[in-house]
């Protein structure tokens, strides 16, 4: 127990706790996905839930990602609140028609007379040696699809609170869970609580430079900021938490204050969300406060490779953020 009465639990446990608490109080919520029952899910998120909720609500499916997404979409159209677990975010490629052409469109296409309250839990990201087909970060595809919301929590406490809001939201929400975050620990309140979607969180205040990050890049940015603090560089870290809808106000306020911004994400640079963030900043009143160009640190434009050294070199690491932020802090001086 910590002094505020919270416990320290892992990100994975926080996701599970959010699922359990919401399922206990809302009978319309259920889970479906591959191997989520007795196996407990590929990463163990749903371990033990079959015993409490039974096979109806912790629903194992065939290996049929299109039909899983369709089952979630159809149940949501009927007013239930399905949560589909895709084993790896990469496999959403097989679900895309249902997600993009059905779930995302139904509300608008039918004149606002229907809604699709569903959550897609998607373990994402690299760092586990799973290579090109089990390591992707596909958020940009979904951000680019009107009708879908995208959430990418970085801490255990955010994961639990944002998941509750995602389940209660009346729209399809892609909920990205970075695999390397699953074992990270944080202070999490025991009770049920919701963190609203669309609100960024300043995870560290600073005056010299803003790092805009989400998911795994948040702890890396915080670690980089600690190192640079020793060099006298005072960094502010903005954790977006929700990518769509985007909290532009918090980003603009921070960049207006620091005058320098580094955008960091794991997904490949070209066509990545960082380009959109840069455009939002450049087109805002923060532009007048910029003392240096907007910089982006992103994944290399290659598939994720297997070898540990190759894999590490593909996405931004703490030392990359340190180097980029150090250079940016001196630019334009």
């Amino acid at each position: 127990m910590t002094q505020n009465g919270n416990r320290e639990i892992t990100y994975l446990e926080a996701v599970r706790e959010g699922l359990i608490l919401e399922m206990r109080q809302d009978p319309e919520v259920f889970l479906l996905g591959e191997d989520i029952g007795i196996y407990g899910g590929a990463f163990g998120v749903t371990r033990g839930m079959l015993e409490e909720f039974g096979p109806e609500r912790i629903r194992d499916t065939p290996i049929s990602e299109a039909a899983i997404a369709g089952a979630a979409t159809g149940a949501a159209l009927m007013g239930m609140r399905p949560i589909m677990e895709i084993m790896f975010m990469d496999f959403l490629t097989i679900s895309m028609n249902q997600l993009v052409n059905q779930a995302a469109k139904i509300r608008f296409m039918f004149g606002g007379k229907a809604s699709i309250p569903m959550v897609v839990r998607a373990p994402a990201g690299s760092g586990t040696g799973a290579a090109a087909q089990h390591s992707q970060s596909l958020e940009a595809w979904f951000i680019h699809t009107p009708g879908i919301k995208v959430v990418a929590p970085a801490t255990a406490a955010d994961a639990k609170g944002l998941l509750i809001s995602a389940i209660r939201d009346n729209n399809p929400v892609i909920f990205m869970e970075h695999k390397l975050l699953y074992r990270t620990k944080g202070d999490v309140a025991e009770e049920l609580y919701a963190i609203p979607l669309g609100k960024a969180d300043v995870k560290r205040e600073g005056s010299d430079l803003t790092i805009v990050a989400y998911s795994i890049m948040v702890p890396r940015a915080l670690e980089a900021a600690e190192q640079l603090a020793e060099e006298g560089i005072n960094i502010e870290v903005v954790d977006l938490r929700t990518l769509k809808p985007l909290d532009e106000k918090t980003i603009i306020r921070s960049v207006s204050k620091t005058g320098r911004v580094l955008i960091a994400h794991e997904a490949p640079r070209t066509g990545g969300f960082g380009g959109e963030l840069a455009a939002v900043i450049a087109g805002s009143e923060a532009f007048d406060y910029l003392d240096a160009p907007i910089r982006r640190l992103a994944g290399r434009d290659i598939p994720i490779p297997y070898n540990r050294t190759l894999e590490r070199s593909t996405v931004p690491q703490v030392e990359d953020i340190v180097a980029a932020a150090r250079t940016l802090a001196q630019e334009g001086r």
Partner: protein
Amino acid sequence: MTISKVVLETDTSPVTSTGLLDELPKEKLAWMLQKMCETRYFEEKAEELYIRGQVHGTMHLSIGMEAASTGAIAALRPDDLIIHHHRGHGHTIAKGADITLMIAEFLGKEPGYCRGRGGSMHIADIPGGNLGATGVVGSGIPTSVGIALALQMRKSDKVLLSFFGDGATNLGEFHESLNMASVWKLPVVFLCDNNQYGMSAAIKKVTNIDRLSTRAVSYGIPGETTDGNDILAVYQATQTAIDRARAGEGPSLVENVTYRWRGHSKSDRNLYRTQEEIDDWKTRDPIVRFKQVLVEANVMTDEEVEAVDQQAKATIDQAAEEAVSFPEPSPENMEDEVYAP
């Protein structure tokens, strides 16, 4: 496991299920004729409006296929559900839609079913149990798994009819969905409106089986093929499948073999089939055939049958006249409609 039953070739004989003529009340039979006629006149009106330049988008006409849509939906209870496809005017009419609001949608008007956002391909009437037409071939099939799952989990005794065309049966989504619905014993009937062409692709050229319903074998569910131009045959096969679904015994696959007289859409130049073939199928008009059956069985007189027909025509004419004058939607603030509050 039930092995799919292979039935007769679609032919010109008037009817294959005359027993139903005794079972069904006259009002019901007259209603079936009415919905078929309304569908036919709706399609002809749609074509006319298009030719007159009053329609912005495309359309997919189901003329010649009225028995397949009306016959299946006639076997439903009013509170049951449907999900269907881009060639879906007939399903929407049979499910009881307000035809004025349908035409309004076709014309892109604000009072239309989808407020002019969906058009011909996406007409939905959620309160009426019509959960919408999808434009990507086969896309409604996986969604129907979820609809039926919700019915089952809520212990509802409602049933879902999930319509798609012959072209959809070669999609992976078809396979995934029928399998999933079968292992979960979901209350859904999969209805293949086999009009024999996926755009220009003859089903016989893209599929190596004679009857699409035989695919049911691989999911361990019943499969049946009917003469889809015989409304009573369609009704009967669907009724059997609905009974099974409602009893909690799971899905079935019903294939109704029919034919579309018109091209796939407005771009079609009919290069993939002969005029002789089209003319031959026109002699098997499902509406003419049903009228003949009703008269020959002394269910209705010639005059009664024609009265139903003319009333349907009047309904469509009146609806179109009203809908044309409806207001256009405003392009402002559409961003506010994308997400549900």
